[in-house]
């Protein structure tokens, strides 16, 4: 009974499940990284670090702010790039997986053939 239940699901709702899993993984990237906040605050000072002392000149303050904002920009940009690369990887692997999905149940039957043929990597 289990075998037929499994097989029927694999070639019906299973496709949708596999597709949803890719969406789920991509969604997780969005949850793990505050993409919207990072874009909105791309040029904001890093951790609000900037000069506020009265003894500092305007030039010093300006330089301080520029350094803080540049550090912030670089860190945020690298995290955003990481999110893009990771998402692209998930999409790619997911697509390959989706293409292979119909043949996966056939593998336990076809792999012994490869063994008898003596094929290796």
């Amino acid at each position, binding site marked *: *009974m*289990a075998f037929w*239940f*499994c097989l029927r*699901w*694999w070639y019906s*709702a*299973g496709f949708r*499940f*596999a597709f949803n899993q890719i969406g789920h993984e991509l969604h*997780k990237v*969005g*949850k*793990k*990284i*505050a*993409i919207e*906040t*990072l874009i909105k*605050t791309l040029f*904001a*000072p*890093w*951790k*609000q*670090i900037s000069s506020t002392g009265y003894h500092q000149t305007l030039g010093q303050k300006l330089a301080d702010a520029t350094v803080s904002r540049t550090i*912030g920009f670089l*860190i*945020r940009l690298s*995290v955003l790039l990481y999110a893009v690369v990771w998402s692209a990887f998930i999409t790619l692997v997911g697509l390959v997986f989706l293409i292979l999905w119909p043949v*996966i*149940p056939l*593998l*336990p039957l076809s*792999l*012994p053939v*490869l*063994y008898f*043929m*003596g*094929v*290796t*990597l």
Partner: protein
Amino acid sequence: MQLIFTPASKRARRARLAKFYANKWAYVGYKIIGLSGLFFGFYLLYIDQPSGWLVLIPGVIGGILYAWTKGDLKNESVIPIRAQELISTDDYMDFATIAKLTQNDPSAYDIYKALEKSEAHYFLQNRFLLPTEIFEEFAPKNKGSGQAVWLYAEQLRSSYELEKYSDITLLVAVLLSIPNVDLMLNNFGLDLKEMESAVPWLSDIHQKRALAKEHKFFGGIGRDWAFGYTPLLRAFGHNISAEIERYGFFSDTSHQLPMIEQMAKTLAGGNGTVTLVGESGVGKTTCVHAFADALLENPKMPSEIKHRQVVALDAPMLIANAKDPGQMEELVLRILNEAHKAKNIILFFDDAEVFFGIGSSIDLSHVLQPAIESSSLQLILAMNPGAWQQLHKSSVIGKLQPLTVSAPDKTNSIQVLRDSISVAEYKNKVLFTYQALEEAYDLGLRYVTNQAMPGAALTILEQAAVTGKEQKLITKEVVRQTVEQIYSIKLQASDQAESTELLNLEAELHKYVINQDRAVEVVSDALRRARSGVSNPNRPIGTFLFLGPTGVGKTELSKALAKVYFGSESSLVRVDMNQYVNESDLSRLLAPMHGNELGFLGQVRKTPFCVVLLDEIEKAHQSVINSFLQMLDEGMMQDSDNHNVSFRDAIVIATSNAGAGKIREFISNDEEAELTENAFVEELISSGAFAPEFINRFDEVVIFKPLDKDELTSVIDLILKDINKNLDDRKIQITLTPAAKQWLSEKGYDPKLGARPMRRMVQRHVENVVAKRLLEQTLHPGQAITLDVGDIEKSN
């Protein structure tokens, strides 16, 4: 509507497959076989071994099973009801429950047997003390009896808005299907409504377990990079949001949802400060935790405040680190600046009155005022209504938006208690029954007057967990025992010894009070009514007005009552009404403290199980008398701090010698006691001595008869008994001859002063003789002497 259970349906078969293929151990197997198969298979292929293809097979099968069970067998989504006439119950039943039911058309008893070893059954046994025999012996066994179970289960599902039936729904439904089950439950001190509440309770526990396992996201990497560091706040504050991120927030605050939404609206709308006003224990702090949780998790929160960090200032830490008020101001100012610069901080001041100099020496209002007025910082203040009233004098009040946090009703309070007890249970390794929670609520409402619900009940439960640590199970009785210990009151049903004591109370009281049969009888009756549970629990045990001349035993009876029934004379709270003759004295009466000493209301709060004696009530000012009206009616008074003080476990006795002359006149005319009382009360009202609304609030007005000479002789016996008690440690016993007693009563008789001069007489004539003989060493320890008229006559 017909409900059927089809064990052969596709969903039911999937549920049974899930039991076997989608359990915890199966997943461990899939992972081990799958991953090792893939790893070793590819490794063998890598080293040119074609056998690697064969090793890959279990890896692929493991992977397939994993995907199938996750995607199909773990998907318990219900099948929408297609036709109301015929509902297939397995379409919306938990997989775990379906898997236990294998019979076609099971009886109620079959359903019980299938669920006998479930967590739900143990839950009913332990949390509700429900005996298994009810199911075993009374669950219907006939074919078709299952139909009633499905119907009750459907009713429970819809009334508690549950998606599916679970073990607990079916077990409670089986219980409901037992004929006359309500009568059986009553025998065990349970009722049907209580049993039904097991359904949402256990469902809630399951939901929270699932929630705890769920991986949560609180904004993701980079959320706080645009906000500043807060080293000072780390040292002097407690980050509630960070705590929730780490440990989660599981309290049920659904009843506080409108409040949380209002807080969000106020803070996001530009008004920087929200003030939560509510009694202590009402859940203001929990409300702030729920708000912090909503900011982290609720997608509907306004973007202006989403993911803001709620940080509670640690007042004791601040006080400990600031040497003087100047340093404290500077420290708080620096903290406020830091929070302002960080841009993502909402500061929470719990017991905020402390920071405004109310009930403390720290007044930081001029430091906080600019921040409040400019709305430059987001602040949440929490304070009690009394402090909020006092803050009205301050100029900051205009900018503070008050939100009233009111005490939840009983259902919501019990719901909160269900969540909150887990800490006490874990700490003390105990288990609370449902009945214990209900009892804590009822007793908390009555006895914990300095806290509101649900805090009051929680305080009792936490104490009960410690009291009942040995027994492991905290029942209703343990809660009652705890309250008895804390408040020195009697709650448990009277045992045999106490019943005997109550039935013979008159005889006991007469050992201290001569004659006055009617007064002794009415107070004894009141106590018997209270202890047998017949009297109204929302009034004092008894309220009596004792009228009569001086020295007839009014105060003595009150003292005797305190001694005999309430444990000791210290259970007598005596108020000399002579001290409350002016209107201005009212504030003194209502003050819980007089300097360092407890005031009248403070004493009653400390010892609620007592005799309250309002001595010479006629002397008190009218406004003072009026302040007692609510107490006589509802057993409650409010002190000057707006805290309720309960008199519901007290006997209230007011004494008065108003119209003493008239009483003597009535008595000397030999009129019937009760007729005399009625006529006398009428006269007291018409003469304006007491207002009718005051006198009518007493349960009984009792007239104390003046004592005659014979009765005075009995008084001498009582006084002598006291003297002998004092001489007990020297083993000296004194007796008086009848002639000596006669002589004393003749000498000490004063119809106006009753027995009052008698103590003086005995002191002068008997105690003096004994003292002299002791000093002359003519009386030695261990001796018994009898004094005659000749002995005591000389002593003056």
